[in-house]
């Protein structure tokens, strides 16, 4: 496959452009997608760049089709991805559910927009519940929540590897701000950095002659008996739990000694980071914890941060009405730290919002 980036380059671009470059650099061969704001430019850049590197694209009739065509491509052993947002993410829960059931290594980039319903085309963190636990399953998915363009680039590359290594559907959860904003980052060829790209392989459409040197493959997602399904789900759950410690990622700052622990994810963690520094300068012992993987969730690490910091209070801040809050509480059940929240559904959060809130808590 033709190299896309020969040496590391400084770039100044939007998150959507970043996403297209990352998918190219990761060796994605196919994108299937359907237009929706604020994700559109991922497709726009991909359709401009892809033909130059012999990669493919199809604008499908809807998100159901985008998700299912992507599931077809990965079954055939081809590195494929899609991108969507909001109502499109809702429709894609059907194919994502099938990907969970059939362990399909598809990658989806989600640029969250305001909800519920059509909401806004701008920004939110309201697709956390949908992306982590959407569908009629058990949330057997891997979800990276990025905060910067550099992370978008890094985690899209990593996301393809996670998907193909572990065979769980994988999501890179961005948002409209990250999608549309321009900022500096480095783009690079993963192999040049020593990142080995996991080889893809076909689940169907395999080499060889049936009955001579191979058996036919019969993939399915429906079972006749309760016990059959039970066995499959229990096996998947066990595998998911086993690999989770290898996948979990988080970030923390000043958790050695604190009065208040601020928990945020994605782009809001940039405001939290600034707020912690400002509060410390004013003599308030604030600290910062951020799950990078929302599924699996860094529960053990967060419990440790609570213990070692000695913090008596926790603030959960998010651009949603309690989606990270619910996720966090279910993961740290039993902790006695007092939890307060700052919910700003569908609007941005800046350091000032967090600083004011923390001061009101102490």
């Amino acid at each position, binding site marked *: 496959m033709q190299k896309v980036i020969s040496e590391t380059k400084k770039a100044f671009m939007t998150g959507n452009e970043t996403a297209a470059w990352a998918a190219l650099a990761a060796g994605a061969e196919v994108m299937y997608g359907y237009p929706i704001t604020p994700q559109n430019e991922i497709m726009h850049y991909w359709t401009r760049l892809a033909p130059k590197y012999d990669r493919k694209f199809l604008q499908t009739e809807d998100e159901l*089709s985008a998700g299912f*065509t992507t599931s077809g491509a990965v079954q055939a052993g081809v590195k*494929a991805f899609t991108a969507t947002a909001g109502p499109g993410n809702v429709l894609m829960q059907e194919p994502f559910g099938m990907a969970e059931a059939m362990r399909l290594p598809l990658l989806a980039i989600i640029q969250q927009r305001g909800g519920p319903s059509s909401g806004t085309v701008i920004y939110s963190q309201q697709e956390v519940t949908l992306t982590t636990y959407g569908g009629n399953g058990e949330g057997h998915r891997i979800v990276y929540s990025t905060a910067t363009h550099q992370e978008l680039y890094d985690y899209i590359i990593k996301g393809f590897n996670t998907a193909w290594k572990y065979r769980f559907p994988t999501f890179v959860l961005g948002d409209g701000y990250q999608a549309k904003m321009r900022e500096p980052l480095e783009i690079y060829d993963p192999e040049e950095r020593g990142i080995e790209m996991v080889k893809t392989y076909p689940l169907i*459409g395999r080499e060889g002659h*049936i009955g001579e040197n191979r058996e036919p493959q019969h*993939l399915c997602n429906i079972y006749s008996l309760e016990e059959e399904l039970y066995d499959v789900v229990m096996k998947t759950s066990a595998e998911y739990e086993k690999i989770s410690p290898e996948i979990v990622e988080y970030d923390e700052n000043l958790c050695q000694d604190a009065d208040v622990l601020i928990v945020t994810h994605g782009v809001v963690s940039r405001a939290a980071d600034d707020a912690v520094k400002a509060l410390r300068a004013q003599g308030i012992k604030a600290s910062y914890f951020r799950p990078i993987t929302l599924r699996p969730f860094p529960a053990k690490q967060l419990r440790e941060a609570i213990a070692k910091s000695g913090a008596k209070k926790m603030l959960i801040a998010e651009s949603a009405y309690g989606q990270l809050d619910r996720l966090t509480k279910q993961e740290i059940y039993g902790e006695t730290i007092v939890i307060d929240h700052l919910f700003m559904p569908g609007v941005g959060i800046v350091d000032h919002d967090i600083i004011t809130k923390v001061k009101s808590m102490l």
Partner: protein
Amino acid sequence: MITPATPKSWYLPSKPHKFCPGCGHGITLKALGEVIDELEIQDKTIFGCDIGCSLLSWDFFACDSTQTHHGRTTPVMVGIKRARPELITIGYMGDGGGYSIGSQHLLNSAVRNEKVTLILVNNTNYGMTGGQMAPTTLPGQKTETTPYGRDPELTGYPTKGPEFLAELTSDGAYIARGTVAKYKQLKRFIKNALLNQIEGNGFSFVEVLSTCPTNWRTNAQQTWHFLEEEMEKEFPVGELKSPLGKGDK
């Protein structure tokens, strides 16, 4: 003892198959199996089935097979074919899957002239879920959700799939309607539909008029009568469009 010849591409561990006695699915899949053998495409065929009674064919063939959600077989086949054009993709679905819940996929893949082959079994009802109305249910026909007979004033007239697909598609498309009552003709249509994909001409579609004695609640004679008389009157059999039209067929 003489046993009926079994297509080589059938997967024997899953036989005997699970369709009801008198069901047309088995005949259709026999024709398809023979065609796969004759075209020698078993190793590179991807057979995809929908949810509906077509699901009972998920391990029917000794071909790589995949099964998806109700109505979504078409996009899965499209995704595979575009990613790996050397594979032969066959989507197998019911009239509910193709004409109702998955109609947007059928229509748009036809318009895009996707190089997949789709076989749609028209049994005038939703077989698997217990005999509700399908888009193909005949006017006056009783089903579980039209217990007094389908009233076109309330629910319209039967969907004419091949007719609308023939209108929608461009030159490379192959569109036909066969019936399990005319086995040789049906097999020829299925073969043409696959040849059309192999030649890379475009979208290929065969609707198959089929039987569902279980939900029709008919005996053998009534079943055959409904298929040959009532259904064929509403749904004329034949090739509606073929780019292969030059030589013998």
